[in-house]
């Protein structure tokens, strides 16, 4: 059995930490079950990519990309863009809910000219 490379060890520790956060957030009711599964899936794929880097190269070739590390970068950037987009939509929703609240307060406190 070969020893872990230092980078593999560091990444593994980080992934264990991140996966535990997803589970704890689900238990605390902060994220839904589907969201926890999504993040655990992401980290599981990351574990495979760290310990079996050749699988990423095989996947890259399937997509017509030369190196495994390139496909990881491309997919990561696409996912990040999507998550930022969803985050903006989420913030807009929160802003809208705050406005609704402020609207109701103002409508209850209407000032009429005597």
């Amino acid at each position, binding site marked *: 059995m070969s020893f872990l490379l230092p980078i593999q060890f560091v990444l593994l520790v980080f992934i264990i930490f991140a996966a535990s956060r997803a589970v704890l957030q689900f238990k605390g009711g902060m994220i839904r079950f589907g969201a926890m599964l999504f993040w655990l899936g992401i980290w599981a794929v990351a574990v495979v990519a760290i310990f079996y880097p050749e699988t990423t190269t095989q996947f890259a070739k399937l997509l017509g990309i030369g190196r495994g590390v390139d496909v990881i970068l491309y997919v990561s950037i696409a996912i990040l863009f999507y998550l930022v*987009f969803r985050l903006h939509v989420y913030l*807009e929703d929160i802003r809208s809910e705050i406005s609704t609240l*402020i*609207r109701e307060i103002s*409508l209850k406190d209407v000032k009429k*000219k005597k």
Partner: protein
Amino acid sequence: MKNLIIIPAFNESAVIETTLKDLRHSLMRDKVKADILLVDDGSSDNTGGVSAPHVDYLLTHTHNCGLGAALATGIEFARRGGYDACVTFDSDGQHDASDIARALEKLESGYDIVIGSRFVGSHSGMPIFRRVVLFIGNFITFLFFGVWTTDSQSGFRGLSKRAINNLVLKSNRMEVSSEFFSEIHRLSLKMCEIPIHIRYTKYSLGKGQKNTASMGVLIKLLYKVFG
């Protein structure tokens, strides 16, 4: 007809008194019966206090939510108050209150929404760059919402009872102007445009929608369409 003039305002204490006095004077001169509602959108310069003696109703947002949210508050007030028609009117003094009577006439004749357009008839005084930006805004509005208008960013609009009761505005800020057209398309509202007179002053040009803000409006519209 029970009519309401909705005026969203944010930090307009420098001009709001003049705007409201002109408005009241015009309504009396044109024999237009309408209540005046000012929605103070979280102003920090006592806009609400200055306006209070000159309006019929005053609503105050405790926090600045944006033009879209202030308009939605005004329309919700009209809905709950059972108004038959309302007109949205800018607080910075650039709109001419004498256009209100024509907008209400159009609504009485069966239109659901009347857009006061700066591009029907004369539009002297508008800087050329702003004209170009507004044309691009009209095109994008058409592209996203399938409704062609000569002035997608106009703040002067007339709404019928059907429009008041069915419009759903979710945009909080400047992008609300385009959202009106998305609602026109969704609800198949009968729309027309009327020429309006605009008084371009240094103050109104400074306070109005900035050309540089157009990109932000575009991004918000993308969120609305794809989000």
